[in-house]
């Protein structure tokens, strides 16, 4: 039996579509991320699971129980908010123990559970501190501990790292995944940060304009995007207009240069076909048996671990990423170069 089932969920605000026909099955212990741009409906969907929004259509089943219209305080669903939402009048221990005291758990048991959970989030020494005495990262750990303390059936996280700076974000992200795996808790995570979704999730639901674009593992989503939106939203992607030479044979033309694509027919060919290829799949120089194109170097940017090169191929710009190394010889601006990419690494949309 599916642990969490979202079936045909739709939500409208007046005439504005927020979520339409959303279907998802989440297994017990799975980490699923909703990924998409602002306004794509990911938070609305999460809020429907939490019980803060009522869907106009569809059902939500948790462990086989229909919770679509169940009040938020009866769902046993833990929620972590972007703004932490710690209770300013309570110290860390009281915040974490709040859900347990609401359930009238004996004080000694609350104390024990709070200590246990604070140990997991590595804040056991800060029990007496108030939220205003904590940094953003610490506050979010407390919020996570508070949500976990009630042993929720599902943990929901609504962009929990957005308000933190980059370094803490990366640290806390790893910690969230560690805790999730340690407690084997079913988790739904909302983010607009693709790196976050790719690094954390068992599966990603990519959303756009209230609809699901694609559901898959991070590997599938990145390497086998099914729509142009997914392809361009996740990672960097080169999209170059092509003319069809022989579709069955996978032959296309960019200006005067012909390329071969290992054909797959997952998506229908659009009226204006484009060749899609990730910048890291393109190599400088000639490689035997690969597609080759002549290009003009327009700009070279050093980004630390990688070097990004802006090229121009038949009047269309194309990005190329090279891993940085000390002996790397970089092309000069306006230099004519040959680039290569394998047949299997590109596809036509």
């Amino acid at each position, binding site marked *: 039996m599916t642990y969490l089932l979202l079936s045909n969920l739709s939500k409208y605000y007046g005439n504005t579509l927020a979520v339409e026909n959303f279907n998802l099955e989440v297994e017990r212990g799975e980490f699923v991320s909703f990924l998409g741009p602002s306004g794509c409906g990911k938070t609305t969907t999460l809020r429907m699971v*939490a*019980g*803060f929004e009522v869907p106009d259509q569809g059902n939500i089943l948790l462990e086989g129980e229909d919770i679509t219209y169940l*009040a*938020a*305080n*009866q*769902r*046993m*669903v*833990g*929620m972590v*908010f972007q*703004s932490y*939402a*710690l*209770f*300013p*009048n309570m110290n860390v221990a009281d915040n974490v123990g*709040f*859900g347990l005291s*609401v*359930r009238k758990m004996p004080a000694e048991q609350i104390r024990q559970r709070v200590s246990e959970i604070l140990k997991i989030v590595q804040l056991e020494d800060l029990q007496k501190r*108030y939220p*205003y*005495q*904590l*940094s*953003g*990262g*610490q506050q979010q750990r407390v*919020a996570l501990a*508070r*949500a976990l303390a*009630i042993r929720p059936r599902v943990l*929901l996280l609504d962009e929990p790292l957005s308000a933190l700076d980059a370094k*803490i974000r990366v*640290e806390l992200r790893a910690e969230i995944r560690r805790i999730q795996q340690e407690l084997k808790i079913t988790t739904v995570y909302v983010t607009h940060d693709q790196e976050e979704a790719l690094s954390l999730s068992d599966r990603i639901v990519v959303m756009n304009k209230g609809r699901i674009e694609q559901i898959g593992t991070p590997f599938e989503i990145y390497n086998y995007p099914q729509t142009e939106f997914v392809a361009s939203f996740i990672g960097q992607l080169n999209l170059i207009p092509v003319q069809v030479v022989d579709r069955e044979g996978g032959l296309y033309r960019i200006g005067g240069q012909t390329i071969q694509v290992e054909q797959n027919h997952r998506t229908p060919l659009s009226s204006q076909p484009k060749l899609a290829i990730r910048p890291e799949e393109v190599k400088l120089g000639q490689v035997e048996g690969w597609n080759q194109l002549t290009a003009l170097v327009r700009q070279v940017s050093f980004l630390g671990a990688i070097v990004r090169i802006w090229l121009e191929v038949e009047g269309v710009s194309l990005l190329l990423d090279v891993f940085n190394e000390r002996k790397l010889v970089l092309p000069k601006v306006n230099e004519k170069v040959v680039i290569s990419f394998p047949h299997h690494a590109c596809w036509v949309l």
Partner: protein
Amino acid sequence: MSKPNTLWSWFWMIVGGLYFFLPLLATFEFSLKARKGVYSFLAYERVFADPLFLRTFIFSLEMAVFTALAGILLIFPTVYWIRLKLPQLRGLIEFVSMLPFVVPAIVLVFGLIRVFSGAPFFLTNTFAGTNILLIAAYVVLTMPYLYRSIDTGLQAIDVRTLTEAAQSLGAGWGTILFRVILPNVRVSILSGSFLAVATVMGEFTIASFLVGIRAFGPYMSLVGQNKTYESSSLAIISFALTWAFIGLIQLLNRGRVQTQIAGAH
């Protein structure tokens, strides 16, 4: 350039200070002249010795406390609910909260007497009924102060997210209201309450028509009409009382500025 600016600031501060404090000082000085030729607190002694002073003072204080309590019970959940569920009604509620400034107290009290003297209420026929009516009128009169204070307090916290966080942890409305929201707007509520108490303690119009000399306001007016020095001492006592309440508000607000520990994690 900054020196002339500072001088002008001091000049206007002194002018303002004189404008406010000179009449007060003059009143205080006058209140000390009850005994011919020497300064004394005789007028104050006479006021405190008058049994009517203590009786009216306690009565008005009781009315003030009940007014503050009734006002909090009415306004706090209302403002919370409007912020949470009906933000589109905020403009209307703000307008309503300002009405006591627009409608004169005399109009309010005549309206109350007219409506609640006859069937089916008959509130003015008994002391208890009149007191209830007086408190109800004072709740309306002090609504702008309580509403503003509570609304400002709720504005400072993220009401919606705190409510949702508490809900997700299993809390019902009572728990959310009294364990999560109320403690975070406690200072605002107390500030509003003190303003309400101060207003009620000196109120004359409504009290004189509903309860007459039983209240402190009409008592002060009566003394002012008949006893020269005592009326000045009462004015000073009344000022001192208001300042004491303002001082309490300041005391409660002190130390509220909380700074986030930067950088640590």
